[in-house]
């Protein structure tokens, strides 16, 4: 005992003497980097968004809980780590070159469950997850949802001109990709390739893309993956938070303004609120050479949220309204096959167009309302329950150029009412085992609004679905294992008229899906995840019942009411390597097999009518396979420079017919060189970046399946510059990006307008975000 005391004194004296030596070292050799992994002490899962401080140096942990601090001296460091929902970590540690794991204790405050819930959804899976955080979103604001997430490798856009875009994840889109808007599945006639998701991206604080078949948790339609649009959690402190966003784009002269206000009632701090609104207006956009007439757009969205938080219980209510009007390029409205072939032969519109921002037919008018109520109950230390109810009403109107004064009457007018009820129980034994059971219910009605005077494209229908699932997860320091099983039931009854003939039918679908997956923490820097899962998708109403001229597509399309559900197996493996801030490599490789993959098959025959003849397509199902790889690598060198390389490749094939599938994205490679610099003391986080995008020509296609061969390969250059200032004690982020810097005239295979026109030309965008 006495001896130990002496040892202690010796050590104390030594460190005291050592400290001044260290101080001198500080002045000369302090450029070490400390790598940290921040985890949740209880669940052992990574904590994202934790602020790490050593003296004046600051950093933030990413979605894997990793953070790095550069400019440190060897020896003792005073580390201060803070994260919402956790107790503060304040302590002394000795500098080490290895990655240090710091486990944070959950804070005893009431908000922990709400906060952690928000993060949990994004991370609690063994499939591949990529999240775009606030910082990433700030540089993309003003664009639509699909354009914003297309910066994630493997995510592409299915465009109908530049104003309408749908995300494509690893080749999957529309009803094969689930989009969750604030936790509720987005339902809005998504079977249409020109029906973009009715979501205001300004509501999101982060957007997550999950690439595995997440069918266990979400049921049908998550066959290709899930996109989660997550707003920020409601505030816990009693000050008012505000965020104002302004974005202006030169191409289309588009202006967007969005504001958000959130706070807490001083007299009743358990109640928090948020209101938000976005307005957008733009005119005709321009390719490198000419304008596309009638491509203006307008948008007006707003939302409100109210949340109540107590010790073991919280509830919140959310309402959002989305309203948009989009002009459809005048030159895309074609008559018969002759028309189409003449346009394709010309390669571009006959007129050069001009700028104006009025919108005439053809145009789309969409209104989407969402009402959501959720409650989260902390039953005890081991058990949590969630109940989520959603109600959506989607109204889609499409106006065409018509005779007899009917241009002002919509040719398509549907109301889609969807109710969803999700309930789940989460169990964690406090050690290394987690379990989850859940139920998802859906009831949907599609009703046409009478008075269009044209034959409706799809019938009226009622559908109900229910699914139950169970998942188990083992979490160990070196690895995680997960398995799940799900049963789904779906019933559909549809009825419609073609002239005076009634058509329709009743359908029942059943399915069992299962998945297994694991994460292996192979050393401090490498994570390998793998997931093998089955998924399914019942046919949509248009796949079952379309029958006739699809005006917008210039083709006659026939559905097949005997279609069976699609069934698939996806195996995705990802490797994530991180050497602090210096080197990051993410590689995803996947194989996706389908039986009964539903698609439109070109029959090669033509339907003759007074209007001319139109090619006939039939809906059919075959076996298909998709193989692909997405990668992203970042190298930091010379202290101030970052080089990023991203790529995505898909190889898809129709196995039954032994030919290629249509509309599969071509290979894409993107590289960025970014410089971080400090021109003035009052500017923070300044950067300058140059980007290059290369998209290859799609050579995997069958000549008979398309009206025109895929366009040539193209190169694009992008420029970006940005910084952050402090104004009146709050931050103002400014950035400017120039897309298609060289004003290249190009066509993209995934743009449905490529038959008639080129893609967008140079676009200079300036964005301002002020956060209070």
């Amino acid at each position, binding site marked *: 005992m006495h001896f130990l005391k002496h040892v202690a004194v010796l050590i104390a004296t030594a460190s005291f003497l050592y400290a001044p030596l260290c101080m001198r070292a500080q002045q000369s050799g302090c450029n070490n980097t400390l790598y940290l992994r921040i985890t949740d002490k209880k669940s052992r899962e990574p904590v994202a968004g934790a602020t790490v401080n050593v003296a004046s140096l600051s950093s933030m942990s990413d979605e894997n809980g990793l953070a790095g601090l550069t400019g440190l001296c060897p020896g003792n460091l005073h580390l201060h780590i803070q994260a919402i929902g956790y107790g503060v970590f304040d302590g002394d540690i000795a500098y080490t070159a290895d990655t240090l794991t710091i486990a944070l204790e959950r804070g005893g405050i009431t908000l922990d469950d709400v906060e952690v819930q928000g993060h949990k959804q994004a991370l609690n899976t063994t499939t591949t997850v990529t999240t775009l955080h606030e910082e990433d979103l700030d540089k993309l604001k003003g664009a639509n949802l699909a354009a914003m997430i297309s910066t994630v490798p493997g995510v592409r856009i299915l465009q109908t001109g530049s104003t309408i875009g749908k995300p494509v994840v690893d080749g999957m889109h529309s009803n094969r990709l689930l989009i969750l808007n604030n936790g509720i599945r987005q339902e809005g006639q998504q079977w249409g390739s020109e029906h973009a998701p009715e979501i205001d991206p300004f509501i999101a604080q982060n957007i997550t893309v999950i690439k595995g078949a997440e069918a266990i948790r979400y049921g049908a339609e998550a066959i290709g993956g899930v996109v989660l649009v997550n707003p920020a959690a409601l505030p816990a402190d009693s000050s008012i938070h505000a965020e104002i966003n302004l974005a202006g784009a030169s191409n289309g002269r588009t202006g967007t303004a969005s504001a958000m206000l959130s706070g807490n009632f001083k007299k009743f701090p358990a109640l928090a609120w948020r209101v938000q609104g976005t307005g957008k207006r733009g005119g005709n956009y321009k390719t490198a050479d000419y304008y596309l007439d009638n491509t203006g757009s307008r948008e007006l969205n707003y939302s409100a949220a109210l949340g109540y938080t107590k010790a073991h219980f919280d509830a919140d209510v959310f309402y959002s309204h989305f309203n948009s009007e989009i002009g459809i390029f005048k030159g895309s409205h074609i008559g018969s096959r002759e028309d189409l072939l003449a346009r394709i032969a010309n390669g571009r519109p006959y007129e050069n167009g001009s700028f104006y921002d009025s919108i005439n037919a053809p145009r789309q008018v969409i209104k989407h309302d969402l009402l959501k109520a959720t409650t989260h109950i902390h039953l005890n230390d081991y*058990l949590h329950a969630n109940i989520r109810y959603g109600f959506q009403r989607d109204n889609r109107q499409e106006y065409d150029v018509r005779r007899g004064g*009917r241009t002002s009457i919509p040719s398509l007018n549907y109301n889609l009412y969807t109710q969803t*009820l999700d309930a789940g129980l989460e169990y964690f034994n406090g050690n290394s085992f987690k379990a989850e059971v859940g139920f998802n219910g859906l009831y949907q009605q599609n009703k046409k609004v009478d008075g269009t*005077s*044209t034959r409706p494209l799809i019938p009226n229908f009622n559908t*109900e679905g229910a699914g139950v699932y169970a998942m188990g997860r083992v979490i160990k320091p070196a690895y995680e294992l997960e398995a799940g099983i799900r049963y789904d039931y779906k019933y559909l*009854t549809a009825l419609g008229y073609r*002239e005076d003939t009634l058509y329709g039918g009743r359908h029942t679908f059943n399915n069992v899906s299962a998945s297994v997956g694991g994460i292996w923490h192979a050393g401090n820097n490498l994570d390998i995840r793998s997931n093998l899962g089955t998924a399914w998708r019942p046919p949509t109403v248009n796949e079952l019942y379309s029958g006739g001229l699809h005006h917008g597509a210039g083709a006659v399309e026939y559905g097949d009411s005997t279609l069976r559900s699609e069934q698939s197996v996806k195996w995705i493996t990802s490797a994530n390597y991180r050497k602090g801030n210096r080197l990051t490599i993410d590689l995803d490789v996947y194989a996706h097999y389908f039986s009964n993959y539903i698609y439109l098959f070109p029959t090669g025959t033509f339907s003759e009518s*007074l209007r*001319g003849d139109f090619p006939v397509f039939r809906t059919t199902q075959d076996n298909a396979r998709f193989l692909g790889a997405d990668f992203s690598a970042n190298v930091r060198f010379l202290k101030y420079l970052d080089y990023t390389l991203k790529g995505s490749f898909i190889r898809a094939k129709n196995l039954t017919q032994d030919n290629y599938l249509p509309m599969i994205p071509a290979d894409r490679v993107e590289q960025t060189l970014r410089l971080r610099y400090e021109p003035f003391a009052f500017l923070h986080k300044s950067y300058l970046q140059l980007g290059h995008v290369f998209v290859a020509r799609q050579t995997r296609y069958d000549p008979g399946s398309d009206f025109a061969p895929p366009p040539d390969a193209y190169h694009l250059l992008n420029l970006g510059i940005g910084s952050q200032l402090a104004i009146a004690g709050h931050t103002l982020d400014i950035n400017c990006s120039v897309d298609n810097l060289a004003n290249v005239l190009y066509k993209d295979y995934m743009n449905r307008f490529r038959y008639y026109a080129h893609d967008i030309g140079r676009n200079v965008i300036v964005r301002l975000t002020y956060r209070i």
Partner: protein
Amino acid sequence: MKKNLLTIGSLLVTAGLLTFSSCSKDPEVKPEIEQEEFNAVRIDFIRLESSGAETTDTVTVNFDKEGNATPSQTLLKNGNSYRTLLTLSLDGTSINDEIIEEGTEHKFFFNPSAAGIINYTYNDEDADGNGIGLDGNMTITGTGTLNLKVILRHALDKSLPDAQAWNSTTYEKAGGEDDLNIAFGLKAE
């Protein structure tokens, strides 16, 4: 704990039942009065005297909704002029009024497969003084057999050069789209 579990359990069951209680009935639907597409076209060739007066001599070609012509070949006499009247109808009712009302947006073009046999002039006029083509004069200037294509362009720009000639084959360049695209055989003797 047990009590809580019971509450949650019953909540989940209720949730399930609620979702199913509104068990789907078949949807209600009313037929839509389809007013858009015309489903028949008729072309009347009324023989004109050399003075220009109309006779009662009329040759008619009817087209069904697939665009098939009856008769498949029409006989007209070399040297004669015919008043050519087009009628587009939906279930027997003519919709020509709709075209005349939006006359500036509509124009008929006639493309013969052989040149030098027929000639056409527009009789009707839209608000800008440009021809529409529902009413015109066709003169037979030669002999032979040909295939005559009749096209109605909608939302075109009539001021453009490609939209001027009755037999323009580059009418697409004037914009718009095909509203009618039919063909039939013509024999001039």
